[in-house]
């Protein structure tokens, strides 16, 4: 079993900037809006959008909550200053607090989901204000694992990095002049203090990307992955996560009644007519 997660960053950059430019302009827009978290994924989408559209056509959104790490905002600022895009900072605390206060027993997951969805509301509002499309920041690892808030951080008009695993996003980031501090810090949704992706998931991106590459890209059976040396518990957990989170990757099913139903036999690309 040969593991090849390495990418030619020049090739990937060429395709992804072309994709962003094509999909935004043919929809009748020339601008993009991106939620800049201070992390590596949104940094990569942001830099690709600046390259595709010109940084003057990219609006970076900084949407901190009161418990957000100060580093997150600072790292977003580093990028905005370096690439010279427009930006706006809108704290979401005042938006989400009234809802959170409604239930004193609210779990951290519920609060995190509310924050992610509040950021989606701001992004789509800025999309209308700036006349730009929301560019997504979800990578292939989190999409497959379902490590994302439905209608929250996963909401976007187009996603340039959704077919790159986290470790591939890191390779691309290094070629895009993204500050080292953003590339090397532990990935975190920053929804509560001390949260890290790898702590919450229970495995490292390095390990899970290799496994996902075999399971998904190379179509190995789970038992073959175990034979090749992956821990059985990890393999089972990942296979189950992929299955359980399919609902986050598809549109809600429509109950079929007529002879022609959206989603089943009414099939057109979004680029129809353009």
């Amino acid at each position: 079993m040969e593991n090849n997660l390495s990418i030619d960053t020049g090739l990937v950059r060429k395709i992804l900037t072309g994709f962003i430019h094509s999909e935004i302009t043919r929809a009748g827009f020339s601008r993009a809006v991106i939620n800049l978290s201070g992390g590596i994924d949104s940094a990569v989408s942001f830099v690709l959008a600046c390259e595709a559209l010109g940084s003057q056509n990219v609006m970076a959104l900084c949407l901190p909550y009161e418990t957000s790490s100060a580093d997150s905002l600072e790292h977003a600022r580093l990028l905005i200053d370096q690439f010279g895009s427009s930006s706006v900072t809108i704290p979401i605390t005042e938006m989400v607090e009234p809802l959170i206060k409604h239930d004193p027993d609210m779990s951290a997951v519920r609060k995190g989901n509310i924050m992610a969805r509040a950021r989606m509301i701001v992004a789509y509002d800025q999309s209308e204000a700036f006349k730009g499309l929301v560019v997504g920041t979800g990578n292939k690892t989190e999409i497959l694992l379902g490590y994302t808030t439905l209608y929250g951080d996963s909401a976007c008009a187009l996603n340039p990095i959704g077919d790159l695993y986290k470790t591939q996003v890191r390779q691309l980031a290094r070629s895009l002049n993204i500050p080292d501090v953003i590339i090397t810090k532990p990935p975190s949704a920053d929804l509560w203090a001390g949260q890290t992706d790898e702590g919450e998931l229970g495995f490292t991106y390095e390990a899970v990307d290799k496994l996902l590459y075999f399971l998904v890209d190379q179509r190995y059976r789970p038992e073959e992955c175990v034979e090749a040396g992956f821990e059985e518990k990890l393999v089972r957990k990942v296979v189950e996560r992929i299955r359980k989170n399919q609902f986050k990757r598809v549109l809600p099913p429509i109950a079929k009644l007529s002879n022609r139903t959206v989603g089943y036999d009414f099939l057109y690309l979004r680029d129809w007519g353009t």
Partner: protein
Amino acid sequence: MKLRLALAQINTRLGDLRANLEKHLTLIEKASQAGADLLVFPELSLTGYLLQDLVPSVSSRPNSEDPIFGPLLDASRDIDLMVGFVDEDSRHRFYIASAYLSQGQVLHVHHKVYLPTYGLFDEGRFFAPGSSVRAFDTRFGRFGMLICEDFWHASPPYLLWLDGADVMLFASASPGRGLNGEAKLESSAWVEHTNRAYAGLFTTFVVHANRVGFEDGLNFWGGSTIFDPDGKLVVQGPYFEETFITAGIDLNQLHRTRARLPLLRDEHPELVQHELERIIHGK
């Protein structure tokens, strides 16, 4: 005999026949002015590729009464053309097709035989498969046309070779895919390898026009090529960029290569027929 070929490595508008026709006519004019004898367009160049339910609304008939083919046939009085379209037959079956137009006439129409219906492809859902692979005579010699998946299978180029095609014209709308650390996508590398192999194995010219652009998340990688009968690259278009390429080929190269390497002379189609009879019919 020298032949000046032009390849239109274009992007298309999905389902917009008029806009695509205009682009064809502009490029035909350009190719004429460049002194080209033949201009080759990619697969479904008049319609765009991922048509899905648009298929019945973008079909054409390759004759002079058709609003799309009328102007193209007129334009073919100056320069030979190969164009990609959706052909609707008299029984209303839809085919992915390429037409060869010359001096106001349709010389040949090829219906894509192999419709990929796996992975990201769903052609078999929307199209009928073609049922023949035939070479045809042009004013420059005997040619053959194939469309994308047709030449992922070895038999269609082989049949064209035996049927007399000395210039094979391949059209694609090939979605780019496969990362492996190399500067070239796996899909591009595969197509280039096989096309070079056909040129060498069949000591023939292999011309490949591939489109560029995006349709939703799919990219089309371009990189159109011409290989000569020695398997040598004559010209290649850039990856991912819309471009117009012209190159001269010398049909006398066929004489030189086949004098050195008489693979066609020594080919034994009766053996193939005999063994196929046994394999298929158990005879």
